[in-house]
């Protein structure tokens, strides 16, 4: 499903005379199968978020390739990646990333609007998804009127409307209390089992890593441990 081959990521810091090279990822190779929940763990600054950003197309690697299916996405332009993301990759962010001026309904509807679906189809899909995440009654609420857990559910719903085969999650429960965290993890597990969505979750939380079918530990930009959980 996702093939990561010899990824290197180096950031140049400082001005020309005093520039330093920061090697964030060193020769990272990884293979993720369809339907897996992969948890990437590691300390802050280990390079796990950089890896997610490269897979998601927010960053170009210094070298190496990322294949999703048979497509080498590292050659994509910004526009091409945007189109590809819209069809194939969903995101769940730690701080939800909802547009504050839009209602829950409008936030969820947004990817469908970008995709060009008509109003009737959008309404149907959005309400169905709101029902799925248990927030249909909150469809007219603005993000500021929702709790953290509810906002994360809206964020997941926004991802789900596109029915993406892959969801990349960056600390999805990082801003939530333990009870809400359990709800969200349950939802992820459910979506994986029911819809076969492949999840790639960045976390430093052991609880989150526990729902994964594969755990990868990164340290100083290198994969130091890869473990499949039965």
């Amino acid at each position, binding site marked *: 499903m996702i093939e990561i081959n010899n990824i290197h990521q180096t950031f140049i810091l400082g001005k020309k005379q005093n520039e330093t090279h920061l090697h964030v990822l060193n020769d990272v190779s990884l293979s993720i199968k369809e339907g897996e929940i992969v948890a990437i763990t590691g300390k802050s600054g280990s390079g796990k978020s950089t890896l997610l950003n490269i897979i998601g197309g927010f960053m170009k690697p210094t070298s190496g390739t990322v294949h999703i299916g048979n497509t080498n996405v590292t050659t994509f332009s910004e*526009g091409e990646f945007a*189109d590809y993301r819209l069809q194939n990759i969903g*995101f769940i*962010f730690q701080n939800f*990333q909802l*547009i504050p001026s839009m209602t829950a309904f409008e936030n969820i509807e947004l*990817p469908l609007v*970008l*995709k*060009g679906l008509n109003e009737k189809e959008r309404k149907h899909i959005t309400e169905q998804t709101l029902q799925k995440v248990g927030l249909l009654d909150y469809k007219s609420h603005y993000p500021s009127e929702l709790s953290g857990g509810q906002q994360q559910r809206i964020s997941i719903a926004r991802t789900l409307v596109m029915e993406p085969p892959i969801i990349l999650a960056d600390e999805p429960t990082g801003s939530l209390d333990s009870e809400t965290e359990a709800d969200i993890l349950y939802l992820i597990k459910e979506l994986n089992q029911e819809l076969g969505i492949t999840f790639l979750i960045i976390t430093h939380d052991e609880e989150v890593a526990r729902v994964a079918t594969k755990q990868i530990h990164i340290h100083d930009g290198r994969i130091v441990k890869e473990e499949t959980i039965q």
Partner: protein
Amino acid sequence: MNLKDQWRFVKSNMRRSKSRIFMTVLATAMSVAFLIVLASVGFGLHSTFIQDLLEDRTVTKIEIAGLEQDGNVQPITDKEIKEIEAIDEVKAVTRQQNLYQTPNYTLDNYSSQNQTVVAHFPSEIEAGLELTEGRLPEGSHEIVVGHHFLNHLAPTDVEVDDLYDENNVIKEKFQYDENLIGKQIEMEVAQYIEGKEQKESITLTITGIVEPPSKGWMEDQKVYTTEEVLNEIESFTNTPRGEIVMPDQSQPASIPKGYDAVYGFADSMDEINNISEILKEQNYLVYSVADEIKNINLVFTIAKIGLIFIGTIAIIIASIGIYNTMTMAVTERTPDIGIMKAIGAHPKKIKQIFLLESSYIGLIGAVIGTAVAYIISILLNITLPIIIESALEEQLPEGFQFSSIPLSLILISVTICLLVTIVSGLKPAKRATQIDVLKAMRREI
């Protein structure tokens, strides 16, 4: 993402910064109104000039003053008339010869002295000479008279001092009050023969009265006669055009053969332009109102372009406001743009949304500006003549229009406004597409 959805985004975004958008639209509207009102003065004065020009002359007429040959100007003769008539678009060529003396006309016991011209009536008919009364001459001794001929007929038995009123017009009671049509009139021409003045009388019949000149202040008291009458006069005076040779003159002045006034006629102004070009190529000296209109149009077009250019500067100044508003909008919405890009919004779509917003500001500004300009234009046309007339104590020409807003001016102004606003929105829109998703979502921009 279709246009309707983009439009929904724009409206929702604009609602978030109402007062800023309002001020920007206001500035744009003011600049558009300024452009239109400024240029409308050029359009107004242009149409006034053209209207004034067309009032006294016809645009389908061309004056042919002569033919240039070897650096000399020759009068037009029958040979040239035939050449001119052979041009496809020429409808008629009228030609007139002036009589070189002013005969005395007597009708019953009334008389007057009138300038007399020999007209070629068949061509005058083709050219569309209009009469207010009667018909054109058919016989050799028939004439038509100018519209004001009657005003100069004075009774012979009244003293000159009693004849005229304070305006130097024949008093009403002394004016000839009968219909002139069908009346026989005596034309008296003179010549000195062997040192003594001799007179010859020719009886003519008035068959028609020519339409008055287009301008109220112009007078036409001429007598239009035929070639046969001219021949009769010439055989009496023994000089061309009936010129009087004074006793102390040894011989008459040499009068060039040809016509004194030749006019070509066509059906439209375009045809006149073509005829004018052809005749100019053949060394004819020509002049037409169409030529004058062409020159006036050129001058006013340059003036209007200048005024539109000055007005455009106002719109460019307003566009700084639009640029600022759009830059602020991009800055404020950076996190939202980041989220949209993360979800999969193509940079092109984001650019379109911002361009749509700047165009909308421009369009609303243009619509309001146009409406305001119309109001100002109407007020100008009402108040300015009153102010000018009271200040200068002079009557402005009839139909004077200080400001005129044709549809073309609206289209030009709206197009300029839209272009300028789109251009001013381009850079902020491009900036929006270049926003780094990660930085935007971390609120680092």
